[in-house]
């Protein structure tokens, strides 16, 4: 992580891509996820919808926020944040889902 900063090229400035094209793709993805949602609530649909959400988010991050052209240590910052959430989820989920409960409903 430390080395990458120094090795970054001086000319940062990200290329500007065709933002309207990205927007159109995002829109199509939105419509696809809505259609998938209308089919029903099966396992497949849920996975599809969330995969599409992740793809959409990655596109925004990569092209609108220009993470594609940022130094690697910023990727690490975002990546480690997501990794921490993953740790949190894995550590907590057994206690929420695998316990004998006496809940109100």
């Amino acid at each position, binding site marked *: 992580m430390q080395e990458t900063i120094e090795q970054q090229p001086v000319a940062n400035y990200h290329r500007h891509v065709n933002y309207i094209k990205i927007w159109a793709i995002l829109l199509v993805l939105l419509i696809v996820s809505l259609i998938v949602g209308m089919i029903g609530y099966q396992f497949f649909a849920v996975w599809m919808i969330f995969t599409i959400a992740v793809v959409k988010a990655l596109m925004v991050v990569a092209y609108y926020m220009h993470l594609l052209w940022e130094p690697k240590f910023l990727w690490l910052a975002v990546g480690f944040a997501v990794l921490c959430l993953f740790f949190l989820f894995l550590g907590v989920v057994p206690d929420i889902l695998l*316990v004998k*409960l006496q*809940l109100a409903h």
Partner: protein
Amino acid sequence: MKFLPENVSTYGGAIDSLGLLITVTVGACLLIAEVVLIAAAIVYRQREGKPASYIQGECWKQLKWIMIPVIIVVLLDCFIDAKTHTTWVLIKGGTPKADQTVRIVAQQYYYSFTLAGADGELDTADDITTINELHVPVDANVIFELEAKDMLHSLWVPALRLKQDALPGRTITGWFNATTPGEYEIACAELCGVGHSAMRATLLVHTTDSFDRWQAEELAPVTSAIEQNATGATP
């Protein structure tokens, strides 16, 4: 270790010996580290004409002086982990076959204990409910179902080496087996409000005979009521 309360449970010995293991191994490491630290600070005091050595500790030849102790620490860690794991599984990993079943309900600021009785089923006629007194027979596997009504509480029996938090909304199952008859303190080890300090109960471990006698005495009114019912019903 005269301050440690006497152990009266079957698994308490395992915890005590784990404590001893850690004390001996880790204590020895601590002692060595402290001695080296203090000795170094004294021996290498500033002296005229004796400059410090230029040691960076970047090459393996120098680093081994810390890496060898670290490897020893790693080995001790593994050893402690292994023993910890077996002890933990013994105590919290599951429950043995029940000789007695008891429901423990913790609330501000007392415990109520419901002993399942001879049939081993809770919520039947031969249940005995007591407040702040837990009666169990000696040498019996007692399975408890721990519940909390309002706040977090923690069932804490030092003599049994037993501690388990009680949470509202879930039933936590655990067990113990007391080996010596007598009276022992039960406390609440989790802050549960203003009266936390006064939340105290007693564990009474009976010999088998005296437990049967106590049970019979407690059940006497219930038994007579059932008998009366029975005689009343048959014309």
